[in-house]
């Protein structure tokens, strides 16, 4: 299972919400193979990845974007790459 973690502010800002929405849409292309979870940037989980900017995207424990809104296609590419590496 590929894990996509979105780190954002609490309460969420428009960019963090949009990032999560795009990640969910990208994950929908890979049913039952990708899990998207949203986390507070100021959490233990956020500390684990050294989150300094929001939104931050972590895919399978690797920070792929920080402070930048990725497109749905970009997220899908990262997911595809991870799936390829796993197979």
């Amino acid at each position: 299972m590929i894990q996509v973690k979105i780190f954002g502010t609490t309460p969420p800002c428009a960019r963090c919400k949009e990032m999560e929405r795009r990640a969910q849409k990208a994950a929908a292309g890979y049913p039952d193979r990708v899990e998207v979870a949203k986390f507070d940037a100021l959490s233990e989980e956020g500390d684990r990845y050294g989150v300094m900017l929001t939104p931050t995207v972590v895919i399978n424990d690797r920070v792929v974007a920080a402070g930048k809104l990725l497109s749905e296609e970009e997220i899908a590419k990262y997911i595809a790459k991870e799936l390829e590496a796993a197979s």
Partner: protein
Amino acid sequence: MKLRMEVFSGDPPCPGCTAILALADEYARKYKGKLEVIKLVGQEAVPKFEEYKLSCVPAVVINEKIRIEGICPSRTTLDNALREGGL
């Protein structure tokens, strides 16, 4: 009667939230005695954020009515919102 302005910000604050918090301080000074400014940031903002059914920050609620959401307003927009609120 004092007008009540609740200003919502995420934590960590994105640029929009940083700007709206500064604006809140400015307006608290500008309308001292006429306007009660309450800043709600991060986790402490969540109960009210949910009560008002807000969807993202930054946001401004004047006398329990959502006036601005998802953007830091210009001074003109905020002045108009306060005027509509009865200031």
